[in-house]
């Protein structure tokens, strides 16, 4: 074996090692995304076909009342799920960071919901929130006959029950991320601030929270994509009901593609979802990568 071959091999080896994985992910991620894109411009009904119809599927998508409900729900759900999740997670992390006893146990308790799948969370909350079985029934049993909590069966409020279940599930995870961030802050800065006479809330507001910026961003990214693709939680908790009051883009896409025989329309809604995710992820990645190069 000539030395030239060995050196060439060692130069090519990393590329060869990565090639199969790259080819597979290219075919089964980007290839299928492209196929979905093509289908969204086709007249596909029950089975995929390639009769070109231009933007017709997108037009009927945005004319559909149900899609508008799904988009509004996505807006409400994302804003509250991310906002409340972040606030609650940060609050729990700050409390846990006060060098308390049994921190390990509490941390596990808070983090535990994350170990459950959304299907389990959804089913459990469905029972808890059902007026005839759960909370309302319980409180009435205690003697508060006029107590009412029927959000689950109220079309105007049902979306907020999904927020409750979602926040319950993810707040512990957000807490864990923030706790790690808090632990990474240099103690000496905090001591210096204390010597300067800063109060505890002021220290948190002006020093700790600003230095958690990177944690905020990664948490935001994780929660944002969970909320856009949220499907199993909705299916288990309300199945999109009452009516289609709690429909989300993902459940809309599933219903159109797989039970209504409108693959083209489903593909169009999936493309819109992809664009929504991309609109959040691409600027973020861009700023991160630019920051790294600097």
């Amino acid at each position, binding site marked *: 074996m000539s030395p030239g071959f060995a050196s060439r091999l060692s130069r090519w080896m990393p590329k060869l090692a990565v090639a199969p994985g790259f080819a597979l992910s290219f075919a089964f991620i980007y290839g299928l995304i492209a196929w979905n894109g093509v289908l969204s411009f086709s007249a596909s009904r029950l*089975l995929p076909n390639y009769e070109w119809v231009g933007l017709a599927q997108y037009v009927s998508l945005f004319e559909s009342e149900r899609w508008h409900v799904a988009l509004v729900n996505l807006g409400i759900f994302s804003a509250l799920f991310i906002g409340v999740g972040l606030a609650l997670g940060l609050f729990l992390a700050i409390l846990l960071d006060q060098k308390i006893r049994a921190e390990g146990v509490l941390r596990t308790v808070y983090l535990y919901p994350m170990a459950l799948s959304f299907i389990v969370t959804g089913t459990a909350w469905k029972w808890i929130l059902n007026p005839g079985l759960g909370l309302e029934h319980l409180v009435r049993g205690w003697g508060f006959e006029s107590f009412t909590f029927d959000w689950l069966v109220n079309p105007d409020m049902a979306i907020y029950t999904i927020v409750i279940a979602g926040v319950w599930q993810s707040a512990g995870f957000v807490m864990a991320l923030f706790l790690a961030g808090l632990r990474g802050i240099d103690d000496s800065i905090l001591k210096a601030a204390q010597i300067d006479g800063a109060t505890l809330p002021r220290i948190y507001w002006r020093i700790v929270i600003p230095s958690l910026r990177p944690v905020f961003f990664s948490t935001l990214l994780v929660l944002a994509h969970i909320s856009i693709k949220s499907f199993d939680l909705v299916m288990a908790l309300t*199945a999109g*009901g*009452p009516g289609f009051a709690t429909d989300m883009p993902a459940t809309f896409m599933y219903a159109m593609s797989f*039970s*209504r025989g409108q693959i083209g329309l489903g593909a169009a809604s999936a493309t819109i979802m992809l664009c929504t995710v991309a609109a959040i992820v691409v600027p973020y990645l861009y700023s991160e990568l630019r920051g790294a190069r600097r």
Partner: protein
Amino acid sequence: MTPTRLTTRALHVAAAATLLCASLSARAGEVEVLHYWTSGGEAKAASALKATLQGKGHSWKDFAVAGGGGDSAMTVLKSRVVSGNAPAAAQIKGPSIQEWGNEGVLANLDDVAKANNWDALLPKVVSDVMKHKGHYVAVPVNVHRVNWLWANPEVLKKANAKMPTNWDEFFVTAEALKKAGVIPVAHGGQNWQDFTTFESVALGVGGADFYRKALVQLDAGSLKGATMQKVLTTFRKVKGYTDKNAPGRDWNLATAMVIRGEAGMQLMGDWAKGEFIAAGKAPGKDFLCAAAPGTANAFTFNIDSFAMFKIKNTANLQAQKDMAAAIMSPEFQETFNLNKGSIPARLNMDMAKFDDCAKLSSKDFVATAKSNTLVPSIAHGMAVSSAAEGAIKDVVSQFWNTDSMTPEQAMDRLVAAAKTK
């Protein structure tokens, strides 16, 4: 028994089985059947078909996909068909048969149909559903009547109320039940159950001709008019007699409320009978069945059927044809429907073994086929394409759940939904 002897016996059995298979495979084919009959009574019904085919020497390859509505089964079927590996038969019904026919993947069963005289055995409305462009592509296994009203006689007696025969009487009975402290109407707030109730109201208030014009032909004038307005107001009024825990409840849990006497009545298809029977109740004594208010002379049908797919292997082709013929045989139709709670799809069947509800259903089926008041159920995928059905179902369910929506708004949306292609 020692281990060695056990092994020897197992070997003998295996050898015998191999011999048996070898001797059969010379002429026999295999049918692979995709279905979603996975609950108790349904699985029993499916095994009746399996036994019939095995009697003819064919082997049966079961391809059951769980999930009552069949959504997951259809997803599996699509992937099989797209990959060029379709099963011999699949449980597909209503206009979906036409949609699959349009994709050009269904087999022609005209020779079997001719040999067994299907045209004379099936009402025309039914055979039309089984045909694509005039050729038989599917076989019906049963007929479910959807426009039923179920009631608990003890509860009715306690409330001093009687079984209603039209919608005015229905509300009198409901009011009496409410006064007696029971839930008048057991309902499950899932969109297809809202739609099932709507369908019965539409048939009862408007009659078969209105139903056909509005919900089968999707005529805009009928979807937006005085009759539809009356249908919607009546439909809304029914909701007032349901309990508020209904959203998301399964239909069989609603039936259980009637069985236990917590609720008085339920509007549901005849699969609800299976729940009463399974709870050890006798028709006429422990529970009452009657046509939904105002629909005694009409019949909304929901027919389960098997569509046959194009396959290449000639032995399997014979098996497929034998299966189609076997499904239409009186023996199979009887055994299957006794287990499933429905009635046979063929006319002129001996109904002696069936219960009173099924006998009434069968009598009305034959009578309405003659008087042209036999209409397809829109809520169960028999009347219009799945896309239009879904869009209309959305409007109906939204109207049911949104108290602020007026009938006029609902009618405008119905007209828009009917245009979905």
